[in-house]
């Protein structure tokens, strides 16, 4: 059997399905539901077995269309930085507020992606977010939590 990344992904999915199936069997159901034709764990159990079945088939059967990915040409570093910025954005959006975190997220993302036109970067972050926020909060009446703007008295 030729081992390639697709097979490794299938193996991981097989392990995941086994874990899912184990967890499905652990679902606590009501005592009167234990022997019912259908209870909260029935469907997940079927799914667990289906996952094992399909991933096992993918592992065993030959793979005629092997996908080759040129890892050297992939931009892992920039992607990781972008993901990290998004995580920081997610972590701070509630505490700091929508306006400041979103604007900083956009500004930082433009910068790390190689943009250096500062004025355009600024326009497409701070004023852009302000306009978008006005559309959501002011026009469409969708609540946006923003402790920062509240602290400086811009938002009620």
């Amino acid at each position, binding site marked *: 059997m030729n081992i390639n990344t697709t097979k490794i992904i299938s193996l991981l999915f097989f392990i995941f399905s086994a874990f899912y199936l184990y967890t499905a069997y652990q679902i606590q159901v009501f005592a009167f539901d234990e022997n019912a034709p259908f209870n909260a764990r029935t469907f997940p159990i079927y799914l667990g077995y289906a996952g094992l079945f399909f991933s096992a088939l993918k592992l065993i059967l030959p793979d005629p269309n092997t996908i080759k990915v040129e890892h050297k*040409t992939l931009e892992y570093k920039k992607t990781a930085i972008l993901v990290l910025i998004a995580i920081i954005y997610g972590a701070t959006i509630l505490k700091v507020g929508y306006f400041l975190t979103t604007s900083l997220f956009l500004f930082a*993302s433009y910068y790390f992606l190689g943009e250096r036109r500062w004025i355009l970067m600024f326009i497409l972050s701070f004023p852009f977010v302000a306009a978008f926020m006005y559309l959501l909060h002011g026009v469409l009446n969708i609540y946006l939590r923003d402790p920062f703007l509240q602290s400086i008295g811009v938002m009620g």
Partner: protein
Amino acid sequence: MIDGILIGLTTALTFQNILMVMVGCFFGTIIGMLPGLGPMTAIALMIPITYGFDPATGLILMAGVYYGAVFGGSTSSILLNAPGVPGTVATSFDGYPMAQQGKAGKALAIAAWSSFAGGTLSAIYLLFMAPSLSKVSLSFRSPDYFALMILGLTAIAAFSSKGQFLKAMMMVVLGLMLASVGQDSLSDITRFTFNNMNLTDGISFVLVVMATFAMSEALTIILKRNDPTSAAKQVSLTELGSIKINKEERTKMYKTIPRSSVIGFLIGVLPGAGATIASFLAYGMERNVVSDEEKEKFGKGSVNGLSAPETANNAACSGSFVPMLTLGIPGSGTTAVMLGALLGFGVQPGPRLYMTNPEIFWSIIMSMYIGMVILLILNLPLIPYIARILAVPKNYLIPLILFFSVTGIYVMSFNNFDIYLMIGIAVVATYLRLYDFPMPPLILAFVLGGLMEENLRRSLLLSNGSWEFLWDRTLTACILATTIFIVLWHIYKTLTKNN
């Protein structure tokens, strides 16, 4: 019926109501284009406004918003691969590749014309068949719905190109597994939450679709930035192309639109089915009926592949009004919101609605046609401007896609956990996409997961645990036979190709 149609026309053609359709279509398109804000949100936002109007005008406004939002969702699917509306997920399969080939204008024009034709044809079907279709829709039982879900998932064979069937099936199972997280709908027992309160209500559809489509697309573009083949793609992205549809493409659409509109309308009529299943089924069926040469183009920018789901989802929008107006059963989440609004007006939908309130029943049907015309008039001239989104440099577009994705989740839940979960799913999806694991089957399974479990539960409980319900009813057996036929056909085609 003629009297009813005349009453409907008189009501729908008043200045106020035409204005409402226009306003609804315009705002619906804008809101639908914003990933995360689908027709349901758009209509929910309109409810307080509509209470100032009479019921017919209020519903006409909401119907306009509905069509507009569905068309707007198609626009973001085609241009950004970010379908904010479940019904437009299938649109992105061929619409986005077409846009990547520098034919964004054409893709939007095909979508606009297909939507118009689908909506118009289904309005005509609705006009003549609404009262009798309500009886047909009532004849569907849980086993039939379960079989229909299986058929919908089998259509993934249509999405998976050569050698991807097992990968697609794994994605189906993963989608169903994700849908099973949270409280069991009947017993309220929590499943796969690992004592995390944030997972009690399950994972939201918008979160999964944003993660697997919009966010993972953005990450893939960054990841493959130095890939010579994707660099070539980026050059072509700045070409917006013509919006003119040539004779060959028109011929393809003439064949696709009628059959997809019938599927869309009939699926839309079934309570709970809606535009999503309709668009996936129409896409799957279209792939099975076209020539082998055309079949190869599916997923790479096929005209048929774009036209079919676009026609079907709009046809289903009209179809979903049948159970809502005639039975009081919403055909989709969006019509459920509209049903709530209708009840708020003091109007009780049901089989007698078109006799007790003919002005409401028929004016909505008439306004659908007017809405389609207005949508076309509004959107076709705007296409060259809308398509310019693609000319935005990647350094700006990628952060903006991420921003829209996070905002979509943020305004829904105000929860950090959902944002982390979305980023996590997006990273996994990006890696899976590198190795050609298709995402559409995962999304379809995720959408159908809850409904599928619900219908299997009812069927098994009614049959006391026996699986005989699968062939007890003729309708169920027919749907299952179709499913088996599709699977066998797929295997046969694969084997003959390999030989």
